[in-house]
C-alpha cells in the first residue's frame, strides 16, 4: 500500500548516504506528491500573475487558482471561513491579535495545556504581556491531559487553546469533550490542529470549535502556507491584524475601511503559488482514506514501540486507538543526537530534540527524545529499516 504510493513522491527515488531514503520525520513536515510539485511548476510557467482586482487573463487564472484553495479548505473541513496564513504559527498569532486582543480584558483567563507546541504558548504569553490576561496550564500526567485539572482550570475561562494531537507523543486529546466542557462555561476554543488534519478528517462545524489552525506542509502541501478556520461567531468578533493591500475597502489619510470576508485578514500579495500547490494537495488527499491509513500506521508504530521497549528503550508515546503514529523514545545512555546521526548514516530520517515543546519535555523529565513519525506513504519496510538501523546503532555503541 505505502510502497505503491511512494511512486507518487519523487523524493523516494533518492538515496541518503548510499541507502534508499527512509523518511520518518513526518511530524516535522511531510513529502510532496508529484501533482503538488507539478501544479506549482505549471502555475509559475503558465499563469503567474498577481491576484484580485485585475482584468487580464493571467491574473484571472491566478486568482482562480488561489481561491480554489480556500474553496477546497471550506469544503474539506466544512467551514464558513478559511483565512489563509503562512502556517499554523501565524494562524495562532492571528487569533491572538485579531480576536484575543479585542475580546479579552486584563485578568481574563486563557486556558492552555502543558502539551502545547511553542506556537500555541508563546503568542499567548506575548498577549499576556500586552494586556495582562491570566494563563492557566492544564497539567499532563503520564502523557495525557489531566481532565479533572482542566475542569478546575475552566472556571471563568474566556478562551481555551488545546493541541488536538501532540507532535511529541501523538496523543490525540479528547477534543470533543474539551470543547463541550469549554462551551458550557462560555469559552471560545482554539485547536492547534497542525498534527490533526494530516491524520483524521475534521468537520469543523460539527466539532464546534471557534478556531482551527494548521499548516499545508504537514499534509503534503507546500511550505509557506496554512490556514485558520473560524466560526461565524468568532469571525464577527475579529478585527484586522496586519494592514496593507487587498484587506481594505477604502483607504484615506483619515482612516480605512476593511473587507468583510476573509480577505480582511490577508494583507498584501497572497501566497499564490502556495495556494495553487495546496489546492492540488487537497485534491490529491481527497482520494485518500485517512481512516484505513491511520489503522495501518498505528499498528506499525505499535510494533516498533514494543520492539524498542524490548531492546531497552523508553517509549513516551501512548499509541491508543486514535493517537497518531508517532514513536517518541530515548535510550538510557545513547545521546539522542548520536542516535539520530547514526540512523541518518543509514538513510533513516528521524527527529531529535525538544520538538518545540519544552514544557512537555520538562514534564517528561528529558532534554529531548528521538521521534519517528509515520505518514500515509510509509509502510512495514520503513519500520523494518528503522528497527534494523537501530540494531546497528546499539551494536556500535555497545
Amino acid at each position: 500500500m505505502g510502497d505503491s504510493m511512494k511512486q507518487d513522491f519523487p523524493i523516494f527515488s533518492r538515496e541518503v548516504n548510499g541507502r534508499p531514503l527512509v523518511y520518518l520525520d513526518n511530524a516535522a513536515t511531510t513529502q510532496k506528491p508529484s501533482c503538488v510539485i507539478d501544479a506549482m511548476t505549471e502555475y509559475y510557467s503558465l499563469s503567474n500573475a498577481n491576484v484580485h482586482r485585475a482584468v487580464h487573463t493571467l491574473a484571472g487564472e491566478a486568482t482562480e487558482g488561489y481561491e480554489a484553495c480556500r474553496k477546497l479548505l471550506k469544503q474539506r473541513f466544512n467551514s464558513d471561513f478559511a483565512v489563509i496564513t503562512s502556517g499554523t504559527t501565524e494562524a495562532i498569532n492571528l487569533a491572538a491579535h485579531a480576536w484575543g486582543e479585542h475580546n479579552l480584558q486584563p485578568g481574563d483567563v486563557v486556558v492552555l495545556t502543558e502539551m502545547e507546541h511553542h506556537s500555541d504558548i508563546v503568542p499567548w504569553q506575548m498577549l499576556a504581556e500586552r494586556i495582562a490576561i491570566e494563563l492557566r496550564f492544564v497539567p499532563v500526567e503520564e502523557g495525557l491531559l489531566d481532565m479533572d485539572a482542566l475542569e478546575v482550570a475552566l472556571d471563568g475561562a474566556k478562551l481555551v487553546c488545546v493541541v488536538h494531537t501532540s507532535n511529541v507523543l501523538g496523543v490525540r486529546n479528547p477534543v470533543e469533550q474539551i470543547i463541550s466542557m469549554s462551551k458550557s462555561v462560555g469559552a471560545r476554543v482554539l485547536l492547534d490542529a497542525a498534527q490533526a488534519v494530516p491524520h483524521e478528517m475534521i468537520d469543523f462545524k460539527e466539532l464546534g470549535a471557534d478556531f482551527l489552525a494548521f499548516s499545508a506542509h504537514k499534509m503534503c502541501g507546500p511550505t509557506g502556507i496554512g490556514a485558520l478556520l473560524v466560526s461565524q461567531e468568532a469571525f464577527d468578533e475579529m478585527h484586522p491584524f496586519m494592514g496593507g493591500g487587498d484587506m481594505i475597502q477604502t483607504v484615506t489619510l483619515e482612516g480605512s475601511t476593511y473587507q468583510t470576508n476573509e480577505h480582511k485578514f490577508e494583507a498584501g500579495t497572497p501566497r499564490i503559488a502556495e495556494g495553487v500547490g495546496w489546492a492540488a494537495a487537497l485534491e490529491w488527499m481527497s482520494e485518500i482514506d485517512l481512516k484505513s491509513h491511520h489503522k495501518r500506521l498505528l499498528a506499525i508504530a505499535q510494533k516498533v514501540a514494543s520492539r524498542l521497549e524490548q531492546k531497552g528503550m523508553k517509549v513516551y508515546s501512548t499509541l491508543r486507538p486514535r493517537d497518531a503514529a508517532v514513536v517518541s523514545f530515548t535510550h538510557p545512555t545513547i545521546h539522542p543526537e548520536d542516535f539520530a546521526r547514526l540512523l541518518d548514516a543509514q538513510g533513516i530520517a528521524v527527529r531529535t530534540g525538544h520538538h518545540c515543546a519544552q514544557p512537555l519535555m520538562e514534564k517528561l523529565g528529558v532534554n529531548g527524545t528521538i521521534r519517528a513519525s509515520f505518514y500515509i506513504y510509509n509502510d512495514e519496510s520503513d519500520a523494518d529499516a528503522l528497527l534494523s538501523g537501530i540494531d546497528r546503532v546499539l551494536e556500535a555503541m555497545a
Partner: protein
Amino acid sequence: MTWPSSIQEIIDEFQEIDDQFERLEVLMDFADEVDELPFDEWSDSNLVRGCQSVAHIEVNIRENLVWIRAAADARMVQGLQGILSIAVNGNSPETVIQLTPNFAEEAGILVSLTPSRSNGFRTMFDMIQNRVKEEIL
C-alpha cells in the same frame, strides 16, 4: 438545456465568434439594450455591491411584468446589463425567478472575463432575482 428564444439568440450570436476582441465588442454593443437609469436616480438601494466598477440596477414590476433600468461606468458592465435586460424585461416574476445565469457561460460571454467580473455578472443576476422575490412574496 433549452433557453427562452431571446436568450438562445444571444447564445448563438456569441458562440459564432472565435476572436476574444470581437466577443467583447459584441458584448459592448448590448449596452444599447439597457433602459438607462439616470444619474440622479443612482442610490445606495440600487447600487450593485461587490462589483469592481460602479453599477446600478433598479427592478420594477408593472402589471405583473419585470422591467429593469440600469447604468454602469464601464461599457462592458453595461453590456452585461443589456443582456440581463433582454433576459428579464417583459417576463413574469415567476419566469425571472426560474432563470439560471448559466446561459452566460454557455454563450462563452464569460470566457476570459476574470472571476471578479463574472462574479459581477452573477452578482447583478442575483440582485435582480432577489428584488423580484422581495416584490412578489
